């Protein structure tokens, strides 16, 4: 059996190869103003929020759940942070920015807890339970910002999503830290095994003494937090909060990234590294579509088509069907003889 990262990595490599052939300058990286610039850096930078959301989504999906509300949480936390800062007298004060970040992340944890409570506590099916916040969340974000798009003038806040460290975008480091923390938390403690166990067989897990509800709530909490951090990065990057459009459709891209990364929607085994690569595939695809100048009206159609191809290539049964077709086409007699041997 191939390593579980084989297909995601291959697909990402193919996408990059396409770009290289289409425009060799795709891989060039320049230093300007003490910072690295280039398409690859852009993919990492703009893909950061998606990677974060998808990492959180991975754990939720592993518990046999799903979280449709992440896009709304992105909008709410962005609104919360921007609102807090805009109320201050000195928008650039470090204390104010820190407080805004803490309040926003606290709120995202609360929202994650809400989802977890609905799913594990009350027992509502995850897709419905999180749909509630997905729909209501945009309204909540509007409430926080009074229906306005808030713009900030805070250098310190802007650093989160647009600053750089060691010549790289700061957001990349955030992703690295969250990814590292997620891997440590799930694989160095027993949480990962519990999540897989609960996602695979909830009843058997309860009888083995696992507190299934706590495990599920923890997954939604973490997913909420990840979406919250993504919300900070997104709003900080543009120094504004737009309750209507921030994080729009993120839940779908995140779910897609998880699936491309090899985690089954049926729960159980999960692959965090696969998810990150899945998110990179989606971001690379988005960037590629811009690079090759697809007219904006049909970008989504092109994206959907490539996603379909990606999913088909990942499917083992599809690959087998293709291979056996290919073989019978070339050697029609062979199959006959083996059957009667």
């Amino acid at each position, binding site marked *: 059996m191939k390593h579980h990262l084989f297909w995601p990595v291959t697909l990402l490599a193919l996408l990059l190869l396409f770009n290289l052939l289409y425009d060799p300058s795709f891989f060039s990286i320049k230093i300007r103003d003490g910072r690295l610039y280039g398409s690859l850096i852009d993919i990492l930078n703009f893909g950061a929020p998606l990677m974060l959301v998808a990492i959180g989504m991975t754990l939720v999906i592993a518990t046999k759940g799903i979280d449709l509300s992440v896009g709304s949480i992105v909008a709410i936390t962005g609104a919360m942070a921007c609102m807090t800062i805009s109320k201050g007298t000195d928008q650039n004060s470090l204390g104010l920015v820190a407080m805004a970040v803490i309040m926003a992340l606290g709120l995202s944890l609360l929202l994650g807890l809400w989802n977890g409570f609905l799913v594990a506590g009350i027992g509502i099916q995850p897709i419905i339970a999180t749909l509630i916040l997905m729909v209501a969340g945009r309204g909540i974000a509007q409430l926080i910002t009074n229906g306005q798009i808030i713009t900030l003038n805070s250098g310190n806040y802007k650093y989160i999503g647009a600053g750089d460290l060691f010549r790289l975008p700061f957001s990349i480091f955030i992703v690295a830290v969250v990814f590292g923390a997620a891997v440590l938390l799930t694989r160095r403690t027993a949480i990962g095994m519990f999540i897989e166990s609960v996602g695979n067989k909830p009843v058997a897990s309860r*009888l083995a*003494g696992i507190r299934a509800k706590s495990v599920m709530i923890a997954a939604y909490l973490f997913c909420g937090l990840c979406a919250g951090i993504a919300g900070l990065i997104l709003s900080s990057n543009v120094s504004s909060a737009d309750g209507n459009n921030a994080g729009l459709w993120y839940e779908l891209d995140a779910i897609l990234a998880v699936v491309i990364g090899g985690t089954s929607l049926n729960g159980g085994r999960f692959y965090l590294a696969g998810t990150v690569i899945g998110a990179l595939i989606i971001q690379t695809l988005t960037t590629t579509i811009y690079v090759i100048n697809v007219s904006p009206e049909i970008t989504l159609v092109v994206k959907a088509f490539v996603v379909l191809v990606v999913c088909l290539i990942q499917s083992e049964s599809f690959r087998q069907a293709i291979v056996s077709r290919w073989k019978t086409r070339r050697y029609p007699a062979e199959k006959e003889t083996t059957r009667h041997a």
Partner: protein
Amino acid sequence: MEERRPILQMRHIHKQFPGVKALSDVQFRLFPGEVHALMGENGAGKSTLIKVLTGVYSIDRGEVELEQKRIVIQGPQDAQAAGISTVYQEVNLCPNLSVAENIFIGREPMRFGRIQWKKLNAAAAKLLEERMHLKIDVTQPLHVYPIAIQQLVAIARALNISAKVLILDEPTSSLDRGEVRQLFDVMNKLKSEGLAILFVTHFLNQVYEISDRITILRGGEFVGEYAASALPRIELVSKMIGKELKLLEELPKQPAAAEKKESGILMEAKSLGKRGAIEPFDLSIRQGEIVGLAGLLGSGRTEAARLLFGADAPDQGSLVIGRGGSAQTPRRAIDNGIAFCSEDRKGEGIIDDLTIRENIVLALQASQGWFRSISRKRQTEIAGQFIEALNINPPNPDQLIKNLSGGNQQKVLLARWLLTDPKLLILDEPTRGIDIGAKAEIQKLVMSLSQKGVSVLFISSELEEVLRVSDRIVVLRDRRKVKELQGDEMSEQSVMKAIAGGGEG
């Protein structure tokens, strides 16, 4: 020369899985109007052979003939179309559809594109009553009925697809005596109508009761085909195991029963009950005691065990473990030293996606909480110890548990609980559907545990087994505790009498 011709003939069947030769040059024939038992231990290739016949697997080499015509079965549809119908060990129906829908699914009587419900329900009710002697409301969803009834419905469904060959894979493993009788009546009737029946079971009694002919497989190879009347029981068993049989020798009857009376009470239930599941019962278990729980299917054995483990919440009565411990949830029960091996190994026991190693450490890790994790190295060590001690096959801790045979899965679950060092081990049908060798191993294990001071609540439909291991037997009937037997009172007759419940209500 024109004597009886087999309706089904399989020759030189080979089937290989990655790393395993599942079938190697196996042959099998089936005559119309006979019941043919397919025997073998776990891993002998019985299931594989059946799956080949039903089109779940395709064969690598060999040929299958049905009514002297060579056929190639490439999928379950092919098998059905050819007239080969199967009822599997685990009921393979849709629990949320009605009984009638389950019987006629895909073949509903239609008129103008609409299903004729009245006709459908009437036909289903008639079919069940006439052929299975079963009178139930066919419009109810299947899951409201006990597994035994579901099994009969599955057989009715298989019969209804105009079958020439009926395959029954362990149909009796979840049936009680009366239901087995009922099933055998049905089988005898079908046999006399000329149907060919392939029957797989682990119960030797049943083999001799119903079969005309026996084919034995061992380790994926064909051992022989015999007339049932010409093959003594001992010979059958030794052919299945492949060596002279010493495993089922009379295990020493528990000598320590008297001693155990002195030891302290470990668990005491007082008028513990749950409406609709089990009527209030008293039960106390001493340290190191093996208490057998006997009764027919549906008598409330599992329900009682679930209350003791906290898997279900009682609506009355009290339960005390040791000094004031309780069992409100499985988590609490485990903390208080109780372990519970469910009868539903697939649904409530194993975690398919995890490895043998992870399945073994799961319960211990759950007790230790999220952050005190057992290191990978330690996990492998633990798994290695149990694999050796319990003879788990394959001996690879990183094998996924779903690839193991039933008996080996059961051993992994036992390992999971032994690792938590329980004071009371509740075993619900621990030997169901597993081979004789593994059965004896598990019975021996239970006895040696009791000698170490572990109490065991042993639930089994096999009376013989309950009698052999238990110090005391509690008999349930119709969701009520009816009798407690110990010492000299314990005999097959007395227990059976209590189960059947002659004079009293």
